[in-house]
């Protein structure tokens, strides 16, 4: 699959990545190159093969459904780039 400019733009939007218009063509060529290369997998016969979703064959355990941590607002917010009072702050979302 070869990607064109507009596909690159739309993937970049899905990934919420700003991509300069000037970079789009070069990026499209690079990504197309990688996709062509990985498409060699098409020649492998995988009929009836279960997709491997985990290396570890183990049953997930459950912990007791109880609060084990939390209640420390100051620590939670300490790495926030632009908190306001007791909140994370973002640009206005609802008009």
């Amino acid at each position, binding site marked *: 699959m070869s990607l064109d400019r507009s596909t690159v733009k739309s993937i970049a939007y899905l990934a919420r990545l700003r991509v300069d218009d000037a970079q789009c063509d070069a990026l499209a060529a*690079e990504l197309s190159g990688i996709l062509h290369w*990985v498409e060699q997998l098409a020649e492998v016969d995988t009929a009836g093969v279960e997709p491997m979703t985990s290396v570890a064959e183990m049953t997930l355990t459950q912990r007791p459904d109880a609060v084990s941590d939390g209640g420390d607002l100051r*620590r939670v917010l*300490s790495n926030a780039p632009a908190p306001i009072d007791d909140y*994370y702050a973002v*640009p206005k979302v609802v008009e």
Partner: protein
Amino acid sequence: MTGDLTRLTIASARDGLAAGRFSAVELARAHLDAIDAARGLNAFITEAPELALALAEASDERRARGGALGALDGIPLAIKDLFCTEGVRTTAGSHILDGFVPLYESTVTGKLRAAGAVVLGKANLDEFAMGSSNTTSYFGPVKNPWGPKDGKDLVPGGSSGGSAAAVAARLCLGATGTDTGGSIRQPASFCGIVGFKPTYGRCSRWGIVAFASSLDQAGPMTRSVRDAAILLSLMAGHDPKDSTSAPVPVPDFEAAVSQGIAGPFRGLKVGIPKEYRIDGMATEIDDLWRQGEAWLREAGAEIRDVSLPHTRYALATYYIIAPAEASSNLARYDGVRFGLRVPGETLDEMYMNTRGEGFGAEVRRRILIGTYVLSAGYYDAYYRKAQQVRALIARDFAQAFEQVDVILTPTAPSDAFAIGDNADDPITMYLNDVFTVPTSLAGLPGISVPAGLSGRGLPLGLQLVGRPFDEETVLRTAAVLERAADFGGLPLPA
């Protein structure tokens, strides 16, 4: 004495501290001085001399009271800057984590700290561990201490390039690394040290900045196989905070190394996978591989040919699965809760500006590939297909391990290349991991042992791969290779 302290192994430093031949503070100072003198390597993103000396003093006090914590008490280590460290800036080699100071300690580094380790600082790495040369770090490339060669600085390999360079240059006695497709083993090979990626699930991933969660695994980087065993014993173990960490006991890995050294081991079967003899393989790599085979045969092992037929599809499989998982894991970096924020008029603009500016070129490339292969309409053709081929690769290994106990391969297809080489085409760079990626996809333990020098006088490693959770056989065999190779490490300055 101070100069000599950086030449010790972890095992000999442990014995020296126990015997009172030097203090943890002297040991820490010797390494802090070495770090100062080698700043040109750019091996560390954050140096932590005050923390190191405070930890070393506390270690000496414990020992004076008769309360030393064990094997690692007072041992100076470097920590790859992908492990979150409480109160010490953690960057993952990225601009997007600007100013991030974790409020918690990763499980693995917490275990090392609890065992008395002295943290010297946070080692440089490829951004988010994505790279094989340590050139994608926002904080600049690391130089391989074996360089320069022919007037050019060399890469240390990656992604754990700072860890590998620091261990090789004797700036620390050992380091933590992480390995997703070869990020411990390939830099170990390039820098002439031991690097061990244990079985997936052996070490907790909690508190390690995630790249590809089904592949990421922490492991030790050291100057001897015994040291790798000592570190791994303390890094490993079940952790309720990582649901994929294995609830299995941690064996005495150091004892396995002693067994290997005691050898010979009759009955051990070593597999040589013919598919790893790739087209265009450098003669010196092939020669070293045959030499390794001869060493193990001389030690009493039986050598058998094995087949891993899907090997040639491993890289393509990896470069679908790893970017897919990365695109999902890296969605959390949005400029809201921590790290860099680049303002925008709307929330979406803020996300896009922050991520566009915060991520470097290789990370952006992988996020885009990952987003594409997971997107509606392409999921089955790419991601599901890759998961199926991954199952076949794992099955190849399982079948080979019905016939042999351990598999011997080269670690990397070349010695260390110059900074800036292999940079024109991402796929050329990806080919560095051709021998290490299959092991990662199958979740198996793999170690790189320095085994010889290339024609240019640069280190080359051999890789041993074992059955799941059979690190002991891998270490036992690695000890034999190490003794036969008698590598010696980076030549000391005259």
